[in-house]
């Protein structure tokens, strides 16, 4: 755990070397919405129908930034090799990277979400709090797989494309369910299916995390 925390600390330090990074993330989130809004010049009704999807697309695209970054910074000065040399087992490295990627993605989401609320003029009801476990579960599913696949993709020439190729198909069930769950909460109809679906997402999170944690060892070694 100590090693994982060291990696986390180092990553966050580099990521937030200055407060500018957070500011640009915020503006970036704003821009994603502005872009979506003016490219889809559609009626408000249609907008509301696609809103949960838009929210998750925005989450995913900002998440991809974090994932692409996570191991790209390790490429400079041969640090990827240095990680293989460290007396730390793969799981620790995975855990450290997973935490930093997840924290950054959650930060992004917490910046995107208020803009989402304002632009779609959503009512803040007590039910909205249900979005917190939904977003958490969806995000962790995305990053737990994303972290290990990012470490795989970084070894290839077309890193960014390859990460998408590997990650998106695998993570799609979780994203679809998260969109569904988000739609239920926003639409205000928490049907019977809500909790079982949420549980299913969490179950997948656990599986993805556990498998990645165990397999990471093999990615570091040459």
């Amino acid at each position, binding site marked *: 755990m*100590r*090693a994982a*925390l*060291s*990696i986390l*600390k*180092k990553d966050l*330090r*580099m990521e937030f*070397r200055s407060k500018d990074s957070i500011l640009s993330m915020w503006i970036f989130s704003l821009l994603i919405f502005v872009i979506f809004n003016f490219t889809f010049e559609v009626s408000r009704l249609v907008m509301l129908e696609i809103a949960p999807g838009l929210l998750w697309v925005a989450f995913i695209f900002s998440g991809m930034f974090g994932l692409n970054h996570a191991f790209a*910074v390790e490429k*400079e*000065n*041969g*640090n990827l*090799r*240095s990680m*293989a*040399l*460290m*007396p*730390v*087992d793969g799981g620790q490295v995975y855990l450290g990277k997973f935490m930093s990627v997840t924290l950054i993605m959650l930060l992004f989401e917490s910046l995107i979400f208020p803009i989402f609320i304002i632009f779609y003029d959503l009512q803040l009801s007590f039910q909205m709090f249900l979005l917190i476990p939904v977003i958490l579960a969806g995000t962790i599913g995305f990053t737990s797989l994303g972290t290990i696949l990012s470490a795989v993709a970084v070894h290839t020439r077309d890193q960014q494309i390859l990460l998408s190729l590997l990650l998106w198909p695998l993570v799609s069930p979780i994203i679809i369910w998260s969109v569904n769950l988000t739609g239920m909460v926003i639409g205000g109809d928490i049907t019977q299916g809500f909790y079982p679906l949420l549980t299913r997402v969490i179950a997948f999170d656990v599986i993805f995390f556990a498998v990645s944690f165990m397999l990471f060892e093999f990615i570091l*070694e*040459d």
Partner: protein
Amino acid sequence: MLLPALELTKVSKDFGRIIALRNIDLTIQSGEFVSILGRNGAGKTTLLNIISGVSKPSSGLVELYGGDPADTENKSKLAVISHEVFLYNNLTATENLEYYASIYGVKDAEQRIKDVLQSVELMHRRFDLVGTFSRGMTQRLTIARALLHEPSLLLLDEPFTGLDQLAIGILISLLRKQKELGRTILLTTHDLHTAKELSQRYLILEKHRILHDGLMADTNPDEIRQKYFSSDRSGE
């Protein structure tokens, strides 16, 4: 009987079409200081990578202290200096060392960081980002990084790169001290005089094999140069 620090049996390595090492047998005892010499592309870096475990041999067996180089315990005994410096440009000198100290579980880290920084004379720049360092300053810092956790096996791939006369002197005396402390050291360099000054034993790699394995005391650098690096052998 004491285990050798390092034992390679019939180690080969190739990268697709290109052969880098062929049937290397090598035993190095604890406390030895061995220089590895050889032409560009002879396979020196590849050999060190295989010993450190970052690169797996295509065939053959590598044993570090009787175990796998990838064992956590073996890894914590190891330090590598290569032409990649293993430092983060966006962290300061101190922050880089703090990171490595915590990864390697260095005790009394703060004091230790100060010590190594002092020994490579970088104290006055410790709060500057590594990205702004000159080549030689970066190399000094990577030396500090490698010595931080008091490794017992040092793999040094051309560690003198970019160092000025003063820093070369510093590194030489640091290495002498390491030798006195009984550490095992493998060094590749193209500077035969320094190699002679430091090490007892030397290997010459050529055409992916160990061409010569002898004692430094028995030879002089110019003879080695004559014998292995003269241009009439250049045709391969």
